[in-house]
C-alpha cells in the first residue's frame, strides 16, 4: 500500500522554481531517501508534505485520501534541518509541550516521554534546561520529541548531523525498529553512505526536478558502466583486446570496461587463452556517491536564479 503519493507538485518562488513538477510515491513501511544537492528543493518539498506550505499546483495523497493538514498533521513526525528547542525551558516540560501540540493527552504524553527517556538513558534530564545540553544531547532530545506521538510517517532532514557514531547508531537502530513496526521513514540527506545502508528506495532531485527514482539496487544496476575488476597472480603480457578497454591497473588487478556486444565470459576467455592465472573476477557497481556526483555534475553546481513565467 502506498502511504504517500505526490502528483505533479509545483511550488514557485519569485526568483526560483523551487519544486517543478515532482511526482513519486512511497510504500508504507519503507525507508525512503530524498537526495539532492544544496538548493535542490528538498526542504520546500518536505514543507509541502508536512503542510507548512501549500503547493502552487499538484496533489498530495496521504493514506489514500487527499492530504488534510489539520487531521493528518498528527500522523506525521517532522524533524526539520533547521531545528531547535526553547533554550530556557525545562527538558521534561518541553517534551510534554511538543507532544501535546501533536495531539497527545497529558497522561499519554508523560508515559511516552518516560518510556523514551529510559530508552535513551535521559531520565535525569527532566528538570534540566536545554541550554545545559551539548549539541549531540539536544539532537537526541529533538529526535525523541519528533517520534513521541508514534507517527505513521516520519520525516527526518539530516538526522545524524552533529551526532557521534555511538548516538548515530542508537538513533539508526530506533529508526529500523520503527520501520519494522510499520512506520514509513523519509530521509533527506547528503550523506550517501548512510543512504546506501538505510534506504530501500530513493529519489534524487536537482534544480526542483526529479532526476532519479527507484530502489537502491535498481539504480545501481541502471547506472553501472560495465566495469569489472580482475585479479591475477601475475599480470598477463597482453592486456589489450577488442572485448574490453583497460580503465585502470592496481598492482596485480586490472579494471576493465567491457565493450558493447561482449560479455564477461568473452573477457575471461581472452585471458584464459593466455594461460593467465586469475584469482578473482568482480563486477564493480557504482556507489551512490558516484552516481550522485555524476548526475548532479551535469548541471551547474549552484543553482542560478531563473525567470519564472
Amino acid at each position, binding site marked *: 500500500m502506498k502511504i504517500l503519493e505526490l502528483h505533479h507538485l509545483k511550488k514557485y518562488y519569485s526568483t526560483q522554481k523551487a519544486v517543478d513538477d515532482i511526482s513519486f510515491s512511497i510504500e508504507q513501511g519503507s525507508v525512503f531517501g530524498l537526495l539532492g544537492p544544496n538548493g535542490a528543493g528538498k526542504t520546500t518539498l518536505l514543507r509541502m508534505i508536512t503542510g*507548512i506550505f501549500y503547493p502552487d499546483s499538484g496533489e498530495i495523497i496521504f493514506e489514500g485520501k487527499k492530504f488534510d*493538514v489539520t487531521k493528518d498533521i498528527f500522523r506525521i513526525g*517532522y524533524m*526539520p534541518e533547521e*531545528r531547535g*528547542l*526553547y533554550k530556557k525551558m525545562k527538558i521534561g516540560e518541553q517534551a510534554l*509541550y511538543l507532544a501535546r*501540540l501533536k495531539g497527545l493527552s497529558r497522561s499519554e504524553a508523560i508515559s511516552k516521554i518516560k518510556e523514551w527517556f529510559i530508552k535513551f538513558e535521559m531520565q535525569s534530564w527532566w528538570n534540566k534546561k536545554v541550554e545545559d545540553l551539548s549539541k549531540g544531547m539536544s539532537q537526541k532530545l529533538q529526535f525523541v520529541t519528533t517520534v513521541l506521538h508514534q507517527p505513521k510517517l516520519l520525516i527526518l532532514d539530516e538526522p545524524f548531523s552533529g551526532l557521534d557514531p555511538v548516538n548515530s547508531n542508537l538513533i539508526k537502530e530506533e529508526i529500523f525498529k520503527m520501520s519494522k513496526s510499520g512506520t514509513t521513514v523519509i530521509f533527506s540527506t547528503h550523506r550517501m553512505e548512510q543512504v546506501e545502508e538505510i534506504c530501500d528506495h530513493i529519489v534524487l532531485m536537482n534544480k526542483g526536478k526529479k532526476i532519479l527514482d527507484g530502489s537502491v539496487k535498481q539504480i545501481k544496476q541502471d547506472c553501472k558502466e560495465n566495469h569489472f575488476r580482475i585479479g591475477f597472480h601475475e599480470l598477463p603480457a597482453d592486456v589489450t583486446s577488442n572485448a574490453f578497454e583497460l580503465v585502470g591497473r592496481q598492482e596485480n588487478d586490472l579494471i576493465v570496461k567491457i565493450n558493447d556486444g561482449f560479455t564477461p565470459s568473452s573477457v575471461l576467455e581472452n585471458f584464459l587463452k593466455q594461460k593467465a592465472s586469475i584469482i578473482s573476477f568482480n563486477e564493480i557497481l557504482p556507489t551512490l556517491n558516484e552516481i550522485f556526483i555524476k548526475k548532479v555534475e551535469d548541471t551547474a553546481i549552484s543553482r542560478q536564479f531563473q525567470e519564472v513565467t
Partner: protein
Amino acid sequence: MGKIWLIIKREYLTRVRNKTFILSTILLPLFFIGFIAASTYFSMKSQDKQTIAVNDANGIFKNNLRSDDIIRYEYTSDVNMENFKLKGYTAFLNIPKNFDSRNDSISLVSDKNIGFVAEDKIKDQINSALRNKAFLEKNINKKVLDSINDLDVEKMYNFRPVIRKGNRNEQSNSGLAYGIGFGSGILIYITLFIYGAAVMRGVMEEKMNRIAEVIISSVRPFQLMLGKIIGIAAVGITQLLIWIVLIIGLSSLASVFVTHDAIQQAQNINNTMNAAGNESMALNILNAKSTFVQANWALIIPCFLFYFIGGYLFYASLFAAVGSVVNEDPQEAQSLMLPITMPIVLSFIIMTAAAAKPDTPIAIWASIIPFSSSIVMMARIPSGGVPLWQLALSMVSLVAGFILTTMLAAKIYRTGILLYGKKVTFREMSKWLFRKS
C-alpha cells in the same frame, strides 16, 4: 482551539515564572511610590534656614521685608559681597544707595544657587515692600493698609466649577481629569512598547532558536502567532492587576502617614507664612484625595481596560510581523520597527495636548483613528466631554483595526518566520501581503 490554548499556557507560564517578571512587577510600583514619597519629603524638608544680609543704606525696606522661619533678613552695613559668607550669611542682598527703580538693580549674591522657591519668596517680599511704600506715599493710612494685607482672600469665597450636562450639574475638576487622562495615556503608551517589544522578542527567539519550524509542523503559523500575542496579553493584564492591588494597598498605607503628618505640616506652614511654593504639594494631595472620589470611575476603568487591551492587540501583531522577518542583526529590528514606533510616538505627542485640551479637532480625530485612539482617547475620557458617538466609533474602529492588522501581519509572519539569512525589504513584505493562501 485546543492548540492555541496550549500555546497561550506555555507563553504565560514561562513568562510569569520568570524572575525578571516577579522583580519588575514588585519593584516598579515600589519605585514609583518611593519616588513620589521621596520628592514630597524633600520638597517639605529641604528648606534649610537661610539668613540674608540686607544692605539697605537708605532704609527703603527697613522692617518691610518680613522674616519667617525659613528666611531671616538682617539689616547690616558692614557686610559686602566679599565677606558675607565669612560672617555666616547665606546670601547678600544689596540695595544701591539712592535706589532708583529705573536705573539701578537690586542684586542678590550667594555662593550657590539658593533655589527658586527662596528666590521667589524674596522677590515677593520686595514686591510687597515696594507696593506698601507706594501706598504710604499716596497717604494711605498704615493701619488700613496692614488690615487689608492681613486679609486671607482665598478663604473669603467658595469656587465651584460646574459642567452642565442635560439638566443636571456635575462638579468639574479639570486638574484631576488632566491627571487621570495624562496618566492613563502614558501608561498605555509605555505598556504598548513593553509588551509589543516582548512579542517581537518572543517571535525572534523562536525564529533564531530554529524551533519555529518544529512548532509549525504541528500548528498553523497563525495559531502560533495568536497564542503568543494572547499569552503575553494575559501576562500584561496580570501585571497590571498586581500593580493596581499594590498601589491601592501601598497608598492606603501611605495615606495613614500622609494625612497625619501632612495635615499638621501643611497647617503649620500655612499659619507661619504666606502661601507659596512647597506646601502646595501637600495641600494638593489633600485636595486630590477628596476629589479623587468624584471622578467618573465607572466609565474610566472599563474604558481604560478596553483601550489597554485594544491598543495592545492592534500593535502586537505588527510587532510579531517585524520579529518574524528579522535575522540575527538587532539593528535590522530597529529600522523595521520604525513604521510601528512612529505612530505610537506621534499618538503620545497628540495625547499630551489632548489631555489639556480634549476637544480640539486633532484630539477628536486622533481618538477615533485606531492607530492613535488607544492612547489619545484615554486622555479625553476623564474630562467627561466625549460624546457617545465618538466613543462608539472609536471602539468599533479599534476592534476592526486590530482584526485587520492581525490578518495582514499573519501573512508576513507566516513567510518571514521560515526565512533565514535574507534581509527582507518592505517591498517584499508588501508582496507577501497580497499573495493568496
